[in-house]
């Protein structure tokens, strides 16, 4: 109930405290990179595959790792309104920015020529990447590295993405080929769901641990 009451009022502050500059800087950096690649491909009459969007989207994912951090967590955790509201709100605000970035980058790639491969595995993969960044940021915000925030979460999420991309064996599930487009999409959405669940757990009120003990006794 308090969440519902607080939400409309909190929304304005969530928007104001959102690290827009960081997120947009990351999105723009990746898009600028893709513009450059598109220009080079255009001059050579090469068709860029949608996979190149992965490269352009990585800076946006790194920037997303800076979003969920709540610098006032010590205060918000002591307030009646749930502390996760701000972080969750800012993650939600980031979604349309990331969607627009992805759309713009796909349009850039489309510009170079007709695409032959399906888009939905790529979208699943990018969704998985974003969820991993959010989970890393949420876990970091709860750890003793909270003051470093995205400086820790961003490299960690990039490392996890690199592991998923290059680890032998894992690529059979997560990359097409050898996995099928459907299998790849399902796998990445499953990863996204798991990562978001982990992130949600990390954003939770810390009192739940004590409450559980209390119930048992």
């Amino acid at each position, binding site marked *: 109930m308090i969440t519902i009451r607080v939400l409309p009022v909190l929304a304005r502050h969530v928007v104001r405290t959102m690290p827009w500059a960081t997120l947009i800087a990351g999105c723009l*950096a990746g898009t600028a*990179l893709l513009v450059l690649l598109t220009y080079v491909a255009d*001059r050579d009459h*090469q068709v860029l595959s949608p996979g190149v969007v992965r490269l352009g989207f*990585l*800076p946006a994912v790194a920037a997303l790792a800076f979003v969920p951090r709540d610098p006032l967590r010590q205060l918000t955790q002591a307030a009646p309104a749930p502390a996760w509201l701000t972080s969750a709100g800012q993650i939600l605000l980031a979604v349309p920015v990331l969607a627009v970035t992805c759309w713009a980058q796909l349009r850039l790639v489309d510009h170079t020529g007709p695409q032959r491969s399906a888009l939905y595995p790529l979208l699943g993969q990018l969704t998985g990447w974003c969820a991993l960044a959010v989970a890393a940021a949420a876990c970091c915000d709860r750890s003793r590295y909270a003051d*470093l*925030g995205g400086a820790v979460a*961003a490299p960690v999420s990039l490392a996890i993405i690199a592991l998923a991309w*290059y680890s032998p064996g894992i690529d059979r599930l997560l990359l097409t080929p050898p996995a099928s487009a459907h299998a790849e999409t399902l796998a990445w959405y499953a990863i996204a769901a798991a990562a978001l669940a982990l992130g949600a757990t990390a954003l939770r009120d810390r009192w739940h641990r004590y409450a559980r003990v209390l119930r048992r006794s």
Partner: protein
Amino acid sequence: MNMPAATRTGDVGRPGLTGAAPARPLRTVLSLAGAEAALLLRSMLVLAGLLAGGAVVWRVIWTSEPVWWNAAWQIGYGQVILAASVLAAAQLTASRARRDGMRELYDSFPVSAATRTLAHVAALAGVLPATVLLACASVALTQARGVIGTPSPAVLAAGVMLVLAAGAAGIALGTRFAHPLAGILGGMVLFVLFTQSYRLLAYPALGGLPWLFPWTIPDQLGSLPGPLAGYPPGGAHALELAGVALLAAVAALMVTKGGTRHRMRLAVTAIVAAAVIGVSVAAQLPSIPTAALNRLFSAAANPTAAQHCTTAGQVRYCLYPGFDAVLPAFQAPVSGVLSQLPVRPAPVLTIAQDTSLALDDPPLTHGHTRAQMDRWNAELQVPPPSTATAPAIYVTEGDERAARFALALGTAEWAVNLPAENSPVNPAGACVALDQAREAIAIWLAITATHASLTRGPGIQAVLVHDTQVVVWIYPGEYDNYTSAPGPQTTVAGLLLAKAMASLPEGKVERVLGASWPTWLNWHTTDAQLAAALGIPMPSVPVPASPLPPGTSPPAQAQNPLCT
């Protein structure tokens, strides 16, 4: 604790200060640099970059046949990863004071911001152990892999210099941007420049410009039959990166306040850095001498003329100079096949290395006239010789170990008289040994010589032979072109029969084949006859699913000839 007193001006009536005399600036820089270097070396980012770089080198070196003129440059791929993480770590170091709100306190210290920045740059020596360790470990790994040639210290040094230059760039970034995302983006830019550098190879007009990138992925370095002096231009590239590091240090110090002398020193250093970069650029851009390329393309076009040949067991092995270590990789599958033959064919089989050099490699061939390029192109178009009386199998250089099965199969197909692609007997391309026992025998020989399990078939496809749909098998390495002029298309029927033969008790197949070897080599002898002789049922061949609705005629398809 008694400390030496120091005199002070304007300090009327006071006892001497209980503090040391002001330290010389250099000592302060070195002391601070030592503290920062220790922090940098212990940074999780640097350690993670070192591990990731090592993993990249392992993956690159272990999956290819290393030759030092390529491997030394490939070790740089791992250094790129380390450089990206060092860039991010250095940016965090340089921006630490502002990020942690310590600026005001630091401004009250006698050590100026310029001194601190200089110390940060000097602290990059702290990552030297990491990058040198990566280089040394990579060299050890490459040597363990069995590498041809000798390493180029200049190229390895360039890799180390790359890490230092990236660190200096990170310091410059950190003096301007305190946000950690700046360092992460900087590392990403370095990584992307590296991974996308190959796109520049499509522009002949750019010539040798790709070498000016922090690190590039060259096109044909691994395909060279031997080292080419000054290619890649490791020494000049190391110098370029040194100049970049110096320029980045100047950029970092420009942010700090200072008097006219400070500005003058920075200006002079910037000019020196620009000069160093200019000299190194000039050293990297010139084209490779015509004489050197003549030798190179001649060795590629006419390999046996450039190679040293040794004969063992009626097989002639021809290798480029320095490639003797590859001989066992050739001998094992070939000997494995030939040792099982009841009767050896008369001609001496030649197994030779081949290269897949092409001219559309601007960093290699830029600066030469059109006429010269046409001459080289014409030279490379002529395929290496292979006839029935002088049969030869050419294995692409760099793929010797990976080509085990392909080489064994090629040897076996020669042994059973199956014609190679584009041979005088089969000029129209790959034929299909449809329902020919000799094909199954060849595959069986290859399986037993290499102990290939072939449990995961790369795939099957259907081709037309005399208007009949035939399911053919794509054997491991077939699409990788490990051997030039490979043999016929192998059928799934032949594969399945060969696998059934391989599971028979030892000696049984040899006895059956030995009883009438010439009969089995006849192209009229069928799979069914072989199966009957061996006492095994004919395996059923899977039918590939048709993408067309029933009743629809398939579109016109090229016919494959029957091997005869």
